[in-house]
């Protein structure tokens, strides 16, 4: 299991290569990467604030839960904070299992929990000002399926 909360950029390919090397015996690996959208050219930057301590703890708990529920051979969560520009990766998750259905499900579970239960807050910076991204009711509702 690897959980990383960092300001620095990360290399998706290198993360996935190391993940694959750790995922011994797995037959399926699913990864998801979130990228900062440019919102039709209006977004200058995204600032991500988090709660040091609680963030790492809550991500580790999500990783543990998913590993137990889907019998994961390996699980990865990387999430950045600080100032990011459009096109930059914000976060990634990866899951490794014997068969693909479980790997897809575990990755979706991690994403649903990460969106609504990990203490991150996004602020959008545009040419005309800045505003905090509002949580979506649909993201909260998505937790009900688990």
């Amino acid at each position, binding site marked *: 299991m690897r959980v990383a909360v960092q300001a620095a950029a990360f290399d998706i390919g290198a993360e996935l290569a190391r993940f694959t090397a750790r995922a011994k015996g797995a037959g399926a690996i699913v990864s998801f990467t979130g990228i900062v959208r440019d919102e039709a050219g209006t977004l200058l930057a995204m600032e991500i604030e988090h*709660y040091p301590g609680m963030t790492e703890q809550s991500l580790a708990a999500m990783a543990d839960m998913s590993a137990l529920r889907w019998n994961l051979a390996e699980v990865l969560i990387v999430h950045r904070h600080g100032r990011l520009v459009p096109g930059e990766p914000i*976060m990634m998750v990866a899951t490794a299992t014997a068969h693909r259905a479980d790997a897809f499900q575990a990755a979706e579970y991690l994403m649903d929990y990460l*969106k609504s239960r990990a203490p991150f807050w996004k602020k959008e910076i545009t040419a005309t000002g800045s505003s*905090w991204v509002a949580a979506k009711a649909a993201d909260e509702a998505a937790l009900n399926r688990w």
Partner: protein
Amino acid sequence: MITLLYFAWVRERIGLPREEVATHAATVADLIAELRLREDRYAAAFADLASLRVALDQQLADFDAPLAGVREVAFFPPMTGG
């Protein structure tokens, strides 16, 4: 003494990221009632509980949760990670 942490627009409205307060509040809701009375900026930050979340010692909690033994209380908007 209890440590209060504020994040995102809660931090901006109150104007500081953390502070230590002396309180005898029994629950989170009691603490919020005390804070609201302090100054307008607190009243503004705590105006709408539906748009607030709270964590006690880094665990998400409800507003009626007791504060006995709690050292760190964090207030923030609904999370927007991912």
